[in-house]
């Protein structure tokens, strides 16, 4: 039976249901236990499992380090570092420890943990609370970076992240927490490393995840009125990326527009674009386009932040240009 839930509630439900069925799962982070998390994602867990929910000091390296050690002992830590920008202070634990433990242990053990973090801009929190930090983590073999776009994905992918034997950085876009969607009551999981074909189309492939998926869907609707057929691919897992899903789509449409929040230069769209242009050189009917943020920090004032972030009209413009080429 499925009902309409918010993205936040879907995440919360995933945590409750996984805590229920695997006692090796525990949560740890700042204010995640008694208060239920800064954004309420872990609410109710401490009440039900007081010995499996831990509030910590402001010590992100300790949080992730502890999670690594506990994971190697067979536990399944779900750590929260609040804003993803804070991964900066525990970056070493993520890229030099968690990411490499499976390799260092020859597969005998691995950092089977989840680090939940709130990514992205839009709520006027400026420089160090608004970044899309995905690219910080995508050139690091051993890491898995997951980025759900809907409540349904939020629950199903978080469940898979918790069950995964790899270190998963689970990115929750703050702009999605209050979005609503159908979510099955029962426990289910969605596969990692698989993109989702959101919509079939024949003229342009739009690659877009998290909040950008909404831009893609709006654009597809609007362009449909102009007789243009967009196919939409939502990566779901940013790294390792489901290359085939993207390649199969572009092989069909011959056109690609990547919609990505965060600075353009070295954003994940760069890899998508290179990968596609290398593999589908003869299939491409037009240059690939990337719709992204400007290459600047994220400022506070709404008019400034909006100027920096990708805007919906940019998507339409890019699609029309690609078609007009």
């Amino acid at each position, binding site marked *: 039976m499925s009902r309409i839930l918010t993205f936040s509630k879907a995440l919360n439900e995933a945590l409750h249901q996984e805590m229920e069925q695997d006692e090796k799962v525990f949560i740890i982070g700042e204010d995640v236990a*008694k208060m239920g998390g800064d954004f309420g994602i872990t609410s109710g867990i401490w009440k039900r499992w007081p010995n499996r929910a831990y509030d*910590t*000091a402001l010590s992100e390296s300790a949080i992730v380090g502890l999670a690594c050690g506990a994971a190697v002992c067979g536990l399944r830590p779900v750590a929260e570092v609040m804003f993803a920008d804070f991964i900066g202070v525990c970056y070493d634990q993520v890229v030099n420890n968690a990411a490499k433990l499976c390799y260092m242990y020859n597969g005998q053990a691995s950092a089977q943990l989840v680090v939940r973090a709130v990514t992205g801009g839009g709520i006027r929190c400026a420089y160090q609370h608004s970044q899309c930090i995905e690219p910080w983590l995508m050139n690091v073999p051993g890491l898995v970076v997951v980025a759900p776009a809907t409540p349904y994905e939020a629950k199903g992918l978080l469940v898979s992240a918790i069950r995964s034997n790899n270190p998963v950085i689970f990115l929750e876009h703050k702009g999605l927490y209050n979005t609503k969607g159908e979510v099955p009551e029962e426990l289910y999981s969605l596969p990692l490393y698989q993109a989702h074909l959101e919509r079939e189309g024949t003229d342009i492939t739009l690659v877009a995840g998290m909040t950008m998926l909404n831009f893609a869907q709006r654009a597809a609707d609007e362009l449909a009125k102009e007789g243009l057929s967009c196919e939409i691919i939502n990566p779901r897992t940013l790294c390792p990326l489901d290359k085939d899903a993207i390649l199969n789509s572009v092989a069909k449409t011959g056109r690609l527009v990547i919609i990505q929040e965060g600075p353009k230069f070295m954003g994940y769209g760069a890899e998508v674009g290179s990968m596609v242009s290398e593999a589908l050189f003869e299939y491409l009917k037009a240059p690939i386009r990337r719709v992204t943020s*400007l290459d*600047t920090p994220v400022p506070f*004032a709404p008019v400034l932040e909006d100027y920096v972030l990708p805007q919906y009209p940019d998507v339409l413009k890019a699609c029309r240009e690609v078609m007009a080429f």
Partner: protein
Amino acid sequence: MALSKERLVKIYEDMVLIRRFELEVEKYSKNGTIPGFIHLGVGQEATQAGILAVLRKTDYKFPDHRSHGAIVLSSDPKDRPRIMAEIFAKKTGLNGGRGGSMHVNDLTVRNMGFNAIEGSVVVTGLGTAFASVYNHTDDVTAIFMGDGTLGEGACHESLNMAATWKLPILYCVVNNQYAISTPVSESHPQKQLATWADGYCVPNEVVDGNDVEAVIPAVERATARARAGGGPTLLEFMTYRWQGHFSGDPAAYRPAGELERWKEKDPLKLTERRLLSEHGVRETDLEQIQARVEAEVAGYVQFALASPDPDPADAAKHVYADIEVEAR
């Protein structure tokens, strides 16, 4: 030694200014005029005003996320409306509206601004203190940091280096009992956080952060030591934030009665009582001060409200010191 009447009156006015400023910010944050998150320092006025009363204009100041008061007091009065404008995200803001509540900096008075990563300025402050020594000046560096922030590894690297090199730093640990919802006792092993500095052989004091007459002498001792080459001091100011962590936080994690008990220790009331009983100040004098400050802050708000939004294209400026990045 007690403060002179003049000084205490002045500092009382400073505290009233902070209280007033915060309540106005809260009002316009609650009604949606101010975007983003706001962290209020109501209840902590004595700590902020006391520290700023001792620091010089040339001392390096690193506020934290709950330091509107320290920021206002550090700036030239003529620039204070621009602080409100910054919080209101306006073009006339001290930083053109690009920073907002957590990021107001004013290099003209060496308010170095806050980097919203807790613990970050604690190591950045090593550099301003280092520069004072390198340039043979006696400017000190004062770093505001909360009790929770003490959990960050950066704090250790900073205290360890400052102690080894005897850098002129004041670690102003504002212990308001909580890090968001987490009480100090659940994130730190010490009875008093100040004793953490014992592990680095750094002089430290526990100070009543609600009493300016306790704050000021402690800060004077610490700054004197630092200016004389005696190295860093860690001061733990015991105080309390009346509101939640951010404006809007119901603070359900607080035990019943706790807030009320602390309100009895209201730093403003405490100083008012002293002024009335020990310095022969009259109620009406205090009311005049309050009225003057109220008008003053109302002026800041008017200025902020009347100010234009920033020019969007300014968002692409100053990414680099010498080259431009692509704008729209």
